């Protein structure tokens, strides 16, 4: 009941390195590892798939995450 366009590609770097990943939104995927207190962003690049940039500000900032969840840019995935 939820068929829609997904943005898919290979992840480079970070915790999902080498995996085929997907995002519902065009800018990429924010990943959160609450257990390890780590986070980062897989930025979607048209010719390179998703490229990881570590950014641990996401894991401790609820309001920042909520804003991202309300936007149409990034998907959010817990690890």
């Amino acid at each position, binding site marked *: *009941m*939820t*068929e*829609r*366009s*997904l943005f898919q590609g290979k992840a480079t770097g970070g915790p999902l390195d080498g995996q085929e990943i*997907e*995002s*519902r*939104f065009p800018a990429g995927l924010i990943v*959160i590892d*609450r*257990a390890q207190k780590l986070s980062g962003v897989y930025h979607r690049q048209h010719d390179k798939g998703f490229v990881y940039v570590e950014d641990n500000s996401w894991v*401790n900032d*609820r*309001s920042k*995450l*909520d804003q991202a*969840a*309300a936007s*149409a840019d990034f*998907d*959010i*995935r*817990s*690890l």
Partner: protein
Amino acid sequence: MAYAPNALKDLYNLWHQSIPSAVFSGIVSSYVPRRGYHFAANQLPTNDYSRQLAEDRIDIDVDAASALDVSQSTTDMMRVTRRFYDSWKNSDDPRLNNVREVIGTLDGRSVIYMDCQSGEQGTADDTHLWHNHVGVLRRFANDGPTMLAIASVVKGETLAQWLGQTQPEEEDDDMSAIGLEIPVSGIKSWTIPPVEAGPDARIALINITNDSENSQYALRIWINKGEGPGKWSPAPNTQEGGWIVLKSGDRYAARLPAGTSCVSIRRPNPDENYPKFLGNLTWALERGPLIKK
């Protein structure tokens, strides 16, 4: 323009309290094509599947989105989806009666779609391997008891535990308190009936929403279970040190842990780097039905 109902935000807060890996992944959507409960009814054509049932057409808020996405670790995805599945399969279990659909994964490899109204099973896209989707019938998008029922499933409560909490006694006085004033300076604490314990055992939630005009305001919220001076802890859903920072009209809500018997709230001291607001601020203690023994 759709808005995200506070009741669905509260559902996420309750979810996160029982599932540590849970991360809020959205209520209002901008998927293309527009379809389903992440959109308000007035954003969708009348033939959309999420506008067909009576509870999706009559007595609804046409501006409210009505679905919650929560991402979790693979282990927690399987655990929570199993809890939804077991409740969905049990025709005696009423906790998902106001839910239209749940999507997730039972095995970490395949996606399951559960229609809680028709009983039909299906599948959906692979993003549901890492996020649960719960679509609530539109009439109940702002309904607190509906969200408490869903949260009970997420938490892993048995049906018996849930029914014990929700069947009211004949004399079930409402002990909730609203408009409790937070002083401008100094600490103020409130003794409350022990949460989920004692002769008046009920679940309890803190609710804070204030009009601070254009100002942000911060509060530090600590709780104690009557276990002594070294046993204070930050209230659930607060930042490090028990702080919350809210804008005018923002809502903070948290279910208090069992045994909590004191809530302490203060505003920032002059030397603390949090936004200060000198106007009137209040909070409310919301208590649920009497828990039957």
